[in-house]
């Protein structure tokens, strides 16, 4: 069973809102860097960066973070997925880093992402922006910017489709 939770327009509106929340909280775009978590988070981060450029005229740097090597929940029997090289071509020291991910679930990916970021330097702050928060946290982690909170059952799946990968924007809830 599939149910669409968000369509293209709704995703667009959410990203606009998150962008303004980021700018509001940080009092502008100075000293901000976006880091997208592979794969979905990267494109979301790029879109947010574009929106910041449109409103503030500032180009915020966008980094790519693959957290595979930092995960503690990789199912050992599963074949590891394609790993993308991490690419953070700027210093994160004393910066306000906004981590961007598509779905916040157990919190383990974010934990891994923070560990990975710490290996690159010492940011002033790390903030978290997510498109969907589906609950079931296993670690004490909350997002600073949440697109939509969607209560789910643990057995259900959230699938995020993005134009850059799938040719369309959509968030779908799948239940067995």
């Amino acid at each position, binding site marked *: 069973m599939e149910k669409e939770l968000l369509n293209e327009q709704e995703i667009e509106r959410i990203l606009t809102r998150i962008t303004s929340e980021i700018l509001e909280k940080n009092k502008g775009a100075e000293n901000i860097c976006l880091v997208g978590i592979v794969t979905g988070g990267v494109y979301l981060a790029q879109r947010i960066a574009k929106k910041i450029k449109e409103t503030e005229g500032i180009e915020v740097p966008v980094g790519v973070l693959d957290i595979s090597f*930092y995960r503690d929940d990789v199912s050992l029997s599963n074949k*590891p997925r394609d790993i993308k090289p*991490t690419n953070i071509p700027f210093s994160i020291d004393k910066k306000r880093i906004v981590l961007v991910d598509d779905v916040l679930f157990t919190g383990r990916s974010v934990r891994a992402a923070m560990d990975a970021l710490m290996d690159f330097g010492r940011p002033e702050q790390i903030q978290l922006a997510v498109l969907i928060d589906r609950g079931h946290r296993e670690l004490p982690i909350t997002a600073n910017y949440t697109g939509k909170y969607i209560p789910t059952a643990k057995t259900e799946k959230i699938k995020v489709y993005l134009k850059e990968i799938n040719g369309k924007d959509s968030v779908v809830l799948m239940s067995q």
Partner: protein
Amino acid sequence: MKDLIGIKELSRAQIEEILNTAKAFKEVLQRDIKKVPTLRGKTAINLFFEPSTRTRTSFELAEKRLSLDVLNFSVPTSAVVKGETLYDTLKTIEAYNVDYIVIRHSSSGAAKFIADHTEASVINAGDGINEHPTQALLDAFSILEIKGRIDGLKIAIVGDILHSRVARSNYYLLSKFDTEIRFVGPPTFLPSHPPENVKVYYRLRDGIKDADVIIMLRIQLERQKSGFIPSLKEYYHFWGLKKEDLSFVRDDAILMHPGPMNRGVEVSTEVVNDPRAIILKQVTNGIATRMAVIYLLRRS
């Protein structure tokens, strides 16, 4: 996959997955903190029955950068011959509860033997004249990094093909891509029944002509004593890659050597210093490639 015994057992897709993963690890190696916590709490043992500082160091570094606990177990072959069988040694090590065994042994098939008798993941770091898979993978990674592709390349492997596990693993790997493979060397160093997809050259300059990649093999100095070649001097004269030969090498070719080199036997100093030589790059890439292999052999 539990083990990496040889390239011959790998599919092209598996090779590409390893090379792709190695790219991600290469990025890790360029950070200030060159270590990731991936395999924290797991243990690797480097079981070396043949001395090899380079390969062992490379594996050790790769393991440490994956946060593995590392044990080194170097066994002089003579001590083994006297008493303990390989099976006994293996069972002792298994009792340490290790997760990864990296093995170097002078007998072809030794890595397979170990893998058949243990639950740990086994990585072949060279077995006899059979295979040295991580060397071929790091060579492929280096070629890919510079050339952007492996398909369509002409690769000349020069030297003692017959006794070289590096040559064999490279041959198997390159055979899984659309490549032209050449074996170059004196007849006593070439297989009497070469595979169909290989071109054999006895003259160095014919063999390296138009080649995109030239892999020079290390000549084991004891080969001369066992009569395979009359002298190292003669070998150098005819099959060593020297300054005079460089003008016959394509401008965009890359020159490779698995190390350690014998200057004045298979290569001259001018060749080592030539901008086309990427010997040191191979060393760096070796760590990233080995990290990728270990990472991908996670146990289920």
